[in-house]
Structure formats: C-alpha cells, structure tokens
C-alpha cells in the first residue's frame, strides 16, 4: 500500500452522518435563531414579513389618507419635502418615525403583525424550469412581547382564501425589542457589528436592516436610528417608482454583489412611512424574466394584543 492509499483508507470506514444530525443541520441553514433574523428564510416561521410601528400610523392614525389608488395629495404638514437621493429618503423616514407614538406592551402580551408576503416560485426544476410570479399570502403573526409564551401564525392565501394556522414555539427573542440603540452612530456600529455573512460588510449591514424590522416591534427612536444609520451605508440608489400592495412607494435599493438581484426598502412616496421590502431580478438569472419582482412584502399593521390569535 503506498502512502496515498494509506491516507485514502484512513478512517474511511467511519459510518455516514446520522440522518437526524443532517436534518438538524439542514433546518439550521434555513432557520438560524434570531437575532438577527435570517433575510431569506421568508417561507419559514417566524421570519416571514415585516414589522415596524410606522404602519400603524398608515392604517389607523391617518384616516384622512386617500385610498391607495387615489391621486397622491401633498403631506398635511408644511411644504412638501422631496428626497432627492437614497440617503435623503432614509433621513426623512427617520424624521417620520420619530413623530410616531410608541406602543406599550406589558409582559405576557403579544406583538401582532399583519403583512402580505408574496413569493414567487420556479416550477419544473428538473425538466424545464419555469418562473411563476409571486403568490400573495396574508400573514398574521402573534409573537410574545417578552419572548416567553408560544406564538401563532395564521396565513391566508389571498387568491383562494385558504387558511392555515401554525403554533410557534416559545423561547424566541422578545418581539417587543427594547435593547437596540436609539442613537444613529451606535445603531450604525450595531448594524456593522455582526460577522460578515460573506457578502461584504455593507451588504451584511444592509440585510440586517430588514432582518431587524421584520415581524417584531421596534420603538420609534430605535426605528429612526436604523434609518439614519442606513443613510450612511454606501452603494445605495434611489428608485422612484416602487409601488407595493397598491401603495405608491419610493425605494432605496442596493444591488447584490452578483449584480443579478436588487434589494429594495420601500417607503411611502409622500409620507416616508416604511411600507415594505421587495427583491427585483435585474440581471440575467434563468429562468427569471429580467426585471420581475421575485418577492415582496407589505406590512399592513402592527399592534399589541393580550393573547395569540386575538385581532386588534
């Protein structure tokens, strides 16, 4: 036996991986526990849609707002302010966030988030991969404000009305987030503090914004700090037409390193309320038609309720 054969046989008879261990590893890939929540495990619980308090204002505190399809009117206060660049949008969004009252949650209460999450699909992977446009799903999620009690996820397929309910394991991170910086400089440090996910520090920080806003409640000051910190991340551009769920939006965007895909954070074009996120295929990425929206999320409502399953 020569030297290479000896190495080749060395420990070669170790048994294969335990299937249970592999299945745990597979699950971990898609569902690494928060924080930060994983950006792309949108189909898995509890990651799935967006959360931020500003939407409460859109839905509840602005009854004077026109219907989504109506012609936009000027903001109710002072002269219209128009952002001319990506950083400007973030700064205006931060200013808007700071005007919002904070929601109050007591231990034992639940953060309720309603959103529409639309995910596309690729069918016939094995024969003729075909892109199928995003399917809209209404998500209502209840997560314990203090992370103790088990939560609940109720999904409704918008087109068919099919409802599905799933209990969510307890022991999650508190959905009412109180430990984030409220100062933009410290928030920026925090956004950049995690390990590089391999996409570069800026992309990692960029993704962390969405991970932090999604399906949990941030007090207005922390939310404003996130937007102010986001304004300092390099490589962002402004996309003026980015409507989501029938609402007229303006997006701050960043390209993935591969240049195939663009990630948008979308704000109301008039009020700069945070509306949601989307992913746009901008390069040649088979089987996607160029320019399609691969997935999008619109946050509709955030509230505090007493028990899982209770509507606000």
């Amino acid at each position, binding site marked *: 036996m020569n030297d290479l054969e000896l190495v080749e046989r*060395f420990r070669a008879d170790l*048994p294969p991986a335990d299937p249970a261990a592999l299945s745990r590893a597979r699950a971990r*890939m898609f569902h690494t526990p928060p924080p930060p929540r994983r950006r792309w495990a949108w189909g898995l619980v509890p990651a799935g849609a967006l959360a931020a308090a500003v939407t409460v204002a859109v839905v509840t505190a602005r009854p004077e707002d026109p219907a989504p399809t109506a012609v936009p009117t000027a903001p109710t206060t002072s002269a219209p302010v128009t952002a001319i660049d990506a950083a400007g949008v973030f700064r205006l969004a931060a200013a808007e966030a700071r005007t919002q009252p904070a929601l109050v949650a007591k231990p034992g209460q639940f953060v309720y988030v309603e959103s529409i999450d639309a995910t596309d699909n690729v069918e016939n992977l094995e024969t003729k991969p075909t892109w199928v446009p995003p399917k809209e799903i209404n998500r209502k999620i209840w997560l314990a404000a203090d992370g103790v009690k088990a939560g609940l996820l109720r999904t409704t397929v918008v087109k068919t009305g099919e409802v599905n309910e799933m209990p969510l394991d307890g022991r999650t991170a508190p959905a009412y987030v109180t430990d984030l910086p409220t100062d933009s400089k410290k928030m920026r440090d925090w956004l950049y503090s995690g390990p590089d996910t391999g996409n570069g520090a800026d992309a990692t920080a960029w993704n962390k914004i969405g991970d932090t806003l999604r399906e949990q409640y941030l007090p207005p000051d922390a939310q404003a700090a996130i937007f102010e910190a986001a304004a300092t991340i390099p490589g962002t551009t402004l996309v003026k037409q980015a409507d989501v769920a029938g609402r007229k939006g303006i997006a701050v965007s960043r390209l993935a390193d591969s240049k195939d895909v663009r990630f948008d954070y979308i704000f109301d074009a008039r009020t700069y309320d945070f509306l949601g996120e989307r992913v746009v295929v901008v390069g040649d990425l088979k089987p996607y038609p160029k320019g399609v929206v691969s997935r999008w999320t619109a946050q509709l409502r955030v509230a505090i309720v007493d028990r899982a399953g209770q509507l606000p």
Partner: protein
Amino acid sequence: MTHTEVMTDQDLIRISVAQPETFGQIFDRHATTIHHYLARRVGRSLADDLTAETFLIAFRRRDNYDVSHQDCRPWLYGIAANLLRGHQRAEIRQYRALARTGVDPVYAADDRVEARVDAADEVRALAGVLAKLAPGERDVLTLVSQAQLSYPEVAQALGIPVGTVRSRLHSARKRIRTALGHDGGLDDE
C-alpha cells in the same frame, strides 16, 4: 423530493438567490459527503456541527458563488477546510493520541461506532505525520486522497495556485514515506 438531476449545482445556486428553498437541494446532494470528510478529520460529533456551519455559510454566500463552476463541491470543501482551521488543536490532539496509543479517539469517543483498538503501525505512523503537517499541507493531502478532488479542484477550494497544490502534496507525501520507512522517491501522482 423533486428530482433535479439535470440541474447543475450552478443552476440550483443561481435559482436559490431568489428562491432560497432551492438551496436545500444543494444540501441534499452534498451534505453526507462533506460530513464524511469532516468526520475523518475531527470525528463525527464535531463534524455534525461543522457540517451545519459549512452549509449555513454556503447558504449565506450563495449570491456571490462563482457561477463559472458547475460543481460546487470544491467550494463547499473550501468552506469546510477553512472552518477546520478553527479546530486544529482538537484535530492534532487526536492524531497524536492515535500515534502514541494505537487507539483512535475518533472511534473511541463516539459511542455510535465500534471502538477500534490497536491500529496498525503504519496507521500510527501516518497519524504522527498528520499531527505535524503544516495546515495547508494537511488540507491538500486530505482533499486529494480522501475527498478525491482533482488538483485544479483543490486549488479552487483553497484559493491557491495549482503549482502550490502540487508542491504541498509532494512535501506531505515525502514526510509520510519517510515516517513509514519507505524510500523518498514518489512513484505516482
């Protein structure tokens, strides 16, 4: 599970950028292989963790996967080899114990496998060399002989020139042959 044999790894990874679930297919294709490689270096228990870690990193980096490569195994092995650097001490300690006692801790410490006693002399000698190799040499040697990668694939995995793969392999083999009491000449590649 969907049959996706006609899709290359490259196709699946590209699709997975926008459709993350697709990356599950990459896991299903290669996890057992990567786990086996890791287990042979650090034992099955640590390999469980490192396999999860390898695929978690791969999953997060999938949007800048070099799409000129159809087979993603070298990429996965590269991530795994990099992670193993963080566990060198554990790896080396086990080689040393095997060289010294003839009992391989990788088997002995794992109640899921039958304990082996009295490894052959040449296996003990090999373990002694593995403990002393430079990390880069150990990576090349095991990727070539255990993972069965080609020289260009090893070069891709470790991000080094093919010439460096050759020279590291040559050096590692020479040390094994010396330890085994063979002459220094190399008869094959």
